[in-house]
């Protein structure tokens, strides 16, 4: 078999089933690191033996059986290494052999079904005792089955940095005794998982468009992980709410920038380029979530995204509904960024002056470029061009990306021309 085809098959296997096999082995051995190494060993063996033997029909079953054998090999090696040091550690080997006697390692790979323990794994990866960057890297690597090289490329980070982050996190999991368990306060811990998934999605959202042929798309990875999480925690409407939110945002990726890479604002986007299939999936997920009658921050954000996604034209947008949803979100979060968005929605109903008055109450966002950009837009709509230009200049100085700086340069130029009475 062609090595490139084998490589693709192994990559697909790692993404589709690596997390499930890893979670199962980690549970069985009570050791995340051993389980991870064993899965990696098995994937390496696949790369070596599949070109000759071909890809097995039940590749997931093959992965479990081979990874388990690798785990036992490792246990045996570490037991004999410890014996050589003179420590009494035959217990590890005994445990391995007892497990073998119970028939753990003699299953037929074609018959294997792998119990789904991924909820424990994803909760562990997103445990609040780990730094959030480590939570992101662990989730992508262990649950998502990405390689450290793929994570590094997707995050525009270096491979040693990502490797180090994962090694440290695994060490803390082991040394601090972070368990692979279903906690009593499940909703709280699921909230931490959702925060990580949305962070991954937004990393993908921000870096989207940069050389995607070589890179894993983090937004799509986050979507995939959100779909998995929704099947693992079907009774938590916030999970489905986040899935809906991601689907609506993902549906607009193609129209967010023009041919020259400039940002296109929502109101100016070519809506025929929105992905209708994703919008439909989003509508379905949102309806499912809201049927539970337990609102939460992701569901409300998804409602707002849905109102945009389902508006045929910018003029059809239901701004009073959106303003009401932001009001609800503000009550839930107290976030000044939500306050800012609420002011924009209100300005679309009641005019720029009402919006500008609401902006006066926003505190703590002086260093946030969108506060100034928004003020600029509202001032421009109110005909106060010179003041608008000053706000765009302030926004440009704080803008975090080239695309946003280019967009603001355009706004500064437009307001300058109007200000000069069209002399240029």
């Amino acid at each position, binding site marked *: 078999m062609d090595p490139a085809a084998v490589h693709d098959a192994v990559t697909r296997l790692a993404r589709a089933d690596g997390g499930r096999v890893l979670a199962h082995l980690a549970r069985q051995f009570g050791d995340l690191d051993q389980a991870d190494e064993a899965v990696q060993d098995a994937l390496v063996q696949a790369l070596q033996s599949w070109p000759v033997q071909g890809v097995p029909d039940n590749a997931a079953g093959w992965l479990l059986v081979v990874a388990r054998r690798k785990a036992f090999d490792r246990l045996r090696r570490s037991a004999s290494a410890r014996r050589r*040091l003179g420590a009494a550690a035959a217990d590890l080997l005994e445990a391995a052999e007892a497990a073998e006697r119970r028939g753990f390692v003699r299953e037929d790979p074609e018959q294997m079904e792998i119990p789904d323990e991924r909820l424990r794994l994803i909760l562990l990866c997103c445990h609040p005792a780990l730094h959030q960057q480590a939570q992101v890297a662990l989730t992508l690597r262990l649950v998502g089955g990405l390689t450290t090289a793929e994570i590094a490329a997707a995050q525009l980070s270096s491979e040693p940095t990502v490797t180090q982050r994962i090694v440290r996190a695994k060490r803390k999991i082991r*040394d601090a*005794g972070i368990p692979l368990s279903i906690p009593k306060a499940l909703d709280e811990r699921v909230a931490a998982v959702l925060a990580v998934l949305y962070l991954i999605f937004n990393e993908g959202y921000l870096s989207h468009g940069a050389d995607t042929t070589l890179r894993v798309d983090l937004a799509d990875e986050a979507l995939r992980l959100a779909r998995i999480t929704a099947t693992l925690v079907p009774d938590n409407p916030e999970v489905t709410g986040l899935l809906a939110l991601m689907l609506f945002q993902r549906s607009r990726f193609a129209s967010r920038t023009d041919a020259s890479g400039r940002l296109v604002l929502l109101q100016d986007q070519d809506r025929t380029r929105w992905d209708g299939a994703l919008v439909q999936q989003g509508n379905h997920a949102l309806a499912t979530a809201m049927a539970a009658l337990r609102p939460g921050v992701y569901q409300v954000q998804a409602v707002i995204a849905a109102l945009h996604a389902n508006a045929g034209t910018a003029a059809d947008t239901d701004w009073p509904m959106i303003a009401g949803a932001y009001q609800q979100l503000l009550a839930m979060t107290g976030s000044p960024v939500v306050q800012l968005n609420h002011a924009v929605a209100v300005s679309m109903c009641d005019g720029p002056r009402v919006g500008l008055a609401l902006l006066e109450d926003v505190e703590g966002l002086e260093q946030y470029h969108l506060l100034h950009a928004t003020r600029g837009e509202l001032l421009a709509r109110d005909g106060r061009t010179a003041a608008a230009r000053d706000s765009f200049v302030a926004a440009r100085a704080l803008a975090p990306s080239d695309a946003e700086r280019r967009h603001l340069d355009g706004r500064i130029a437009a307001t300058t021309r109007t200000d000069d009475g069209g002399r240029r």
Partner: protein
Amino acid sequence: MEYLLLINVDETHAPGEPGSDGFQENMAAWMAFNQRLVEGGHWIAGASLQPASTATVLDRRSGAVTDGPYAETKEQLAGFYLLSAADLDEALELAGAMPLPDAAVEVRPVLFRPDA
């Protein structure tokens, strides 16, 4: 009188692994010191801890759990417990049950305790 001795060291100077040069001598010196404490009636509880990178802090005011040691200098160490728990989640639950709602509790796994 009873005293808690807080031992601060530079973690980058890691102690040797078992079997490395000087390991036996170092261990023997510590055992002798511990023995002296026990025989002199000084011993209550003592342990060496895992490095600061394994620490987890529970802020009782916000309920937030975060990675890393507690570094707020305006609050000082006021006491300690040495307790047994199945895993970090149980240890955090116990830390959250302490009748001290304004505290930030650093939970650090024990590496080794001579009397355990």
